[in-house]
């Protein structure tokens, strides 16, 4: 499964010039601020917008090649699209909506697969209803199911959560995670939210002012932002201390409040920069449970008095926000070995731990 995208487009003072490839399943996030050109990119991939110049190849089939005057029409592209507004057909029931793309699919999903998608998205009890009788979150799920049942070879999601309030977002997230881990269809997910991207994406393509400014694994990207580090870890089967769980990752072990998860399950943990303390020597007699040896990758000023220290902890990125005065006092500089201290209680499993049933196909 490969998708190659290269686009040049211009409109009203905005120019888009970007190229990237997606060569693995899972969720690739198109991440960037509003107006960066993300929606323009997915619209061009779907065929809803015809760029001035470009080439789009999906699984070896050329969908667009302006040089050769090839432009496959939208309805023949077999690319699913989940819009920000659900865009359900108001004159059809949920079930008719779900089957609209399925009926027109070249390789229609079997009844078993339909049942699987409907169960995965929790839509069974909604099937007879009309779209006007659904909540915002339910509409999003139906839109997701409708796109999936058209058996697309690539699924585009344009800020599918942006129109929802936080409670609805939390309601949809687990479905998106399940979908990602189901790993049947690669997804290109447009978002400007670090939270969504850190939780859902495997790979991130950062777009700013119509250009791709960075791309790589979500973990590398997060280590580059001030959002804090996102670490993927496995729940250890080791018998943990009272009320706690042990997570194993490449940089060592992380003790966190008890997770009701069996050993071997993979989770994502977010460690906020403010919650990481640094020490030059391995401290003893402190309450914090996690003392991780790490090397300083670089130091950047944050505001007037603070500094963000990027750490490599067994190859895994961590971020510590300390005062600039401390950085001077400890004579911190890139390459220096330090100990990162993380209080177990700051890793809140409700907010920052995300379950992942299957390991990712690979990490970039």
């Amino acid at each position, binding site marked *: 499964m490969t998708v190659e995208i290269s686009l040049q487009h211009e409109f009203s003072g905005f120019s888009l010039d970007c190229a990237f490839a997606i060569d693995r399943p899972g969720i690739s996030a198109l991440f960037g601020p509003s107006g960066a050109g993300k929606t323009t990119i997915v619209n061009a991939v779907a065929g809803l917008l015809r760029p001035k110049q470009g080439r789009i190849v999906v699984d070896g089939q050329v969908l667009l090649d302006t040089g050769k005057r090839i432009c496959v029409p*939208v*309805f023949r592209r077999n690319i699913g*699209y989940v819009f920000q507004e659900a865009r359900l057909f*108001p*004159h059809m029931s949920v079930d008719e909506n779900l089957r609209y793309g399925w009926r027109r699919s070249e390789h229609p999903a079997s009844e078993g697969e339909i049942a699987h998608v409907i169960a995965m998205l929790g839509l069974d009890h909604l099937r007879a209803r009309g779209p006007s009788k659904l909540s915002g979150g339910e509409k999003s799920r139906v839109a997701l199911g409708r796109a999936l049942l058209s058996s697309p070879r690539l699924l585009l999601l344009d800020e599918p959560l942006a129109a929802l309030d936080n409670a609805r977002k939390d309601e949809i997230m687990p479905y998106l995670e399940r979908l990602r881990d189901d790993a049947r269809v690669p997804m290109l997910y447009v978002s400007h939210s670090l939270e969504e991207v850190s939780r859902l994406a495997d790979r991130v393509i950062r777009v700013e002012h119509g250009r791709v400014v960075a791309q790589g694994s979500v973990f590398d990207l997060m280590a580059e932002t001030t959002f804090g580090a996102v670490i993927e870890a496995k729940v250890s089967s080791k018998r943990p201390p009272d009320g706690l769980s042990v997570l194993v990752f490449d940089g060592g072990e992380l003790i966190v409040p008890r997770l009701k998860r069996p050993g071997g399950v993979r989770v994502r943990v977010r460690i906020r920069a403010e919650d990481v303390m640094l020490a030059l020597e391995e401290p003893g007699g402190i309450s914090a449970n996690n003392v991780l040896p790490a090397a300083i990758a670089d130091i950047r000023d944050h505001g007037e008095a603070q500094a963000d220290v990027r750490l490599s902890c067994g190859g895994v990125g961590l971020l510590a926000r300390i005062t600039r005065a401390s950085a001077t006092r400890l004579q911190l500089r890139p390459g220096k070995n330090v100990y990162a201290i993380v209080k177990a209680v700051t890793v809140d499993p409700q907010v920052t731990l995300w379950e992942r049933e299957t390991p990712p196909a690979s990490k970039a």
Partner: protein
Amino acid sequence: MNFTLTPAETEALLLSLKVSTVAVFCALPFALAAALLLARGRFFGRNLLNGLLHLPLVLPPVVIGYLLLVVLGTRAPLGAWLLDNLGIRFAFSWIGAALASAIITFPFQLRAIRLSLEAADPGLSAAAATLGASRLDRLATITLPLAIPGIISGLITAFAASLGEFGAIITFVSNIPGVTRTLPLAIFTAIQSPGGEWEAARLCAISVAIAIVAVLAAELLTARARTAIAR
């Protein structure tokens, strides 16, 4: 007082209903096509076409009747050709009355359908395209079903307006009892004849009743179509 309709009155009423029904249903496909073209199409001369299609609304009906006579009269080339080769006779026949009504009331249908097409979210059609629906498929399964309220209200408004058509009909197909004498023409005739006031009043009452029923039916059917769409 006797409220039973006389044979002549019944004849005028039934003829009016026949002429108007045929007129609006024959104009509907053209109105649909024109509305789609104007609502969705982006082409040179779109505003000009829009103006031309709305001409029947502003032209005096007598002018339209006269133009029809010039083009489709039995001695006009096209009218003669149609009569000789296809056996279709517009002049002095109820078909001609229906044609005149269709042309006069066409803008009512066009306008109602166009408004409902323009009010529809083009995003729905785009969504259908990403789900594999071709242009024609989208038209049949998304665009037209969503325009049904507009189509119904256009049909009924045009029907009501058609029942009142006078000038174009009397100019084009004349006032022949049982053939082209629709309700308005019958009212006109009654007023013209001495002692016909009572008959004119009765015919007017029938017209008013039909108009009220049509307007109520339009409201009801449109509302029902809307609820059926917004499930």
